[in-house]
């Protein structure tokens, strides 16, 4: 089973990388961008086949290591 984890900064946390990207896009002529936030995407190839167990395992991974819950949120998608 494949787990796809999106890790994003919590609202209100300053994102200098997102700002730099926004600025660069503007410089390239792309208008109409209100804001850019940069995050991380992690793919996990799991041997677990049961969706509930897999989700629980990945949540634990996020809480323990993959995300720093002081400043980051995470979202988990599973491909059965």
């Amino acid at each position, binding site marked *: 089973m494949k787990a796809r984890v999106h890790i994003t900064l919590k609202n209100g946390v300053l994102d200098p990388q997102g700002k730099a990207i926004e600025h660069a896009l503007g410089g390239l002529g792309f208008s109409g961008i209100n804001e850019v936030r940069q995050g991380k995407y992690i793919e996990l190839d799991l041997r677990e086949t049961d969706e509930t167990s897999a989700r629980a395992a990945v949540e634990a991974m996020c809480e323990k290591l993959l995300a720093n819950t*002081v400043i980051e949120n995470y979202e988990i998608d599973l491909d059965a």
Partner: protein
Amino acid sequence: MKAAVIVSPGSNCDRDVQVALRQSAGADPIMHWHGDPDLPYVDLIVVPGGFSYGDYLRAGAMAAHSPVIREVVARANKGVPVLGICNGFQILTECGLLPGVLMRNAGLKFICRDVDLRVEAADTVFTRAYVNGQIIRIPVAHNEGNYFADEDTLNRLDGDNRVAFRYCTPDGEVIARANPNGASRNIAGILNEARNVLGMMPHPERLADAALGGTDGRPMFDSLVEALAAAA
């Protein structure tokens, strides 16, 4: 005084800390491999700078789960002084001994230069050889030194006088211009509630030798040796 320096895969400044401690203490610290949870009894634990685990995922994130770190946390909770420098500070926030997080420098570039710091908590075993308000010159070298915590935490740190060092101008002004990385409230180093754990981004071990351009870092190690010898 017996000290231990934790060495993780990718630590780089462990030898520099060993040299600084040897200079002040007259004896070498134990260089303790991260994978060995059996930490001998010591008076001081130092988590040095470097790029543990390459700073991959987040700086300090993986090293914070090393077998020995659980023991470091337990000792800290018992009152053993713990000093985290640069990557060490990052590891201490990731393992929960200190609040907040070190994020990417606001300028998005690695920065290596001398900075001026205002000492604000000169009552600890680490800082006793300084006085409050003293301006010292110490180098920084980091990509993720931008200290961040929510407003409540920052207010608590200020209220309890737990900010040990702040970036300032050579005249002591704590202003944006003097802040190399965008850290909240110019915070360069903080203490835990019990004031026995100090995390700081600048490298005091790099300016403890006149041949390297200055000795403002030396008092930190001298102070530790003195304080901990007396306690022994």
